[in-house]
């Protein structure tokens, strides 16, 4: 099954995405990540107003089998969380780049965007991970 990659996002090596929107950005986990995790039953999101450095663990995704940490691709302050996920965590499985977004943050340092992977780079990264026997 081909992994879907959104053309308007930037990516981390730990399979989170960032979508820039002016001086803010949305963050979530990728299609590859949700497929690896399988049925997501709970998403623990941060508090609005909390600040994180790039690479910080900002959320935990609970699948049927296990809890997995999620890492923020950019430094910044959380300005909104996706409250829909509390009642419907499964939208992370069905629409990881859309309705399954996790948080919106105020970008602290736009220079960090250059450290993220482009869609083409991430496609290559995922292809490699799959070839190494993701499953």
């Amino acid at each position, binding site marked *: 099954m081909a992994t879907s990659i959104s053309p308007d996002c930037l990516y981390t090596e730990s399979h989170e995405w960032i979508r820039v929107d002016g001086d803010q950005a949305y963050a979530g986990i990728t299609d590859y990540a949700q497929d690896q995790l399988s*049925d997501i*039953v709970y998403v623990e999101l941060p508090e609005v107003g909390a600040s994180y450095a790039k690479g910080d663990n900002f959320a935990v995704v609970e699948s*049927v089998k296990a809890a997995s940490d999620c890492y923020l691709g950019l430094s910044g302050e959380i300005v909104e969380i996706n409250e829909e996920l509390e009642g419907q965590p499964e939208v992370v499985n069905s629409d990881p780049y859309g309705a399954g977004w996790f948080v919106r943050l105020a970008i602290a340092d736009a220079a960090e965007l250059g450290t993220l992977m482009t869609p083409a780079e991430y496609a290559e990264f995922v292809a490699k991970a799959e070839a190494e026997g993701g499953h």
Partner: protein
Amino acid sequence: MTKTLLYDRHLALGGRMVEFAGWELPVQYPTGPKAEHLAVRERAGLFDIDHMGQVIVSGPDALAFLQRVLTADIAAIPQGQAGYALMCYADGGTVDDTFVYALPGRYLVAINASNNVKDTRWLEAQTYGLNVSVRNVSEETYMLALQGPLAAAIMQPLTDADLSALAYHHAVEGTVAGVPGIISHTGYTGEDGFELYLAASGAVAAWDAIMAQGAPQGLLPIGLAARDSLRFEAAMPLYGQELGPSISPLEAGLSWAVSWTKGPFIGREALLKQRLEGVTRTLVAFRMLDRGVPRHEYPVLSDGQVVGVVTSGMYAPTLDQFLGLAFVPPASRRPGTELSIGIRGRENRAVVVKKPFYIPAYRRS
């Protein structure tokens, strides 16, 4: 890692293979563990459980031997029936939990995959003074489980056994899709269904026939993740979590499988002492009040102090709740007692509820 004879079938079905007790088994198929779990509750599911171990006990002293090594009264298991029993160390800790079948001229003891070698050595070491043969037949025996409310309807056309005459916990010798073996009205899901002990040479033929027969009725192949969530909802113990070398059957709430009247058995004195003095911890079921997923080994807290530990915890698909099993002090055993579960440094509130979460089919009929 050992591959089962159905390894290629699992790959063809898109199974995601993982290591479990030295075996390479599917943790899930593309449908996902939630859909697999619900398929077993609503329709039927087929499980490759070849990793399970089997031991044949025979000889003039077979019964005396099993009375020695198992906690339940094996003499009370009628011919053609199966009973649950634990195997204990002298200190009351649990070697394994087993299903014992009284068959013509022999007993079949079904044991856990992770304990297959350990149990066989333990059993062989306890044969002193008795005329008994203990033979591990795991390699020549292939175990499949067909579970769910449609299990009998799917199985009946494939077998010469009359399933309508096979009561719960009864077993009969017969064929499935022409493959000889034992058909047992048992399971590890809380649902109606069968466990099959087949000649290993026929494993692929039996799997294919059952899958083909059940496909029109919504039968799904089931992976380890759903196997765990199904047994968890029925509060059936998993060795290594609810049971272990330092956990006694009384602590795990399994005193119903311990006979005090059958005579001596290994572990009896330690268990009797525990019974008289009372256990210091007991297994309870709980439901999360605050949102969060309890997991194996998370601490149970009361007034900020660690008082216990979660043995199993997860999202329960049938009940759509976050639930767990935990060892707690006996004072906290009553349903309605509030506890906290330590989840990543926070205390999330939970409440003790009655076991099991999901009433098994054999207790509903």
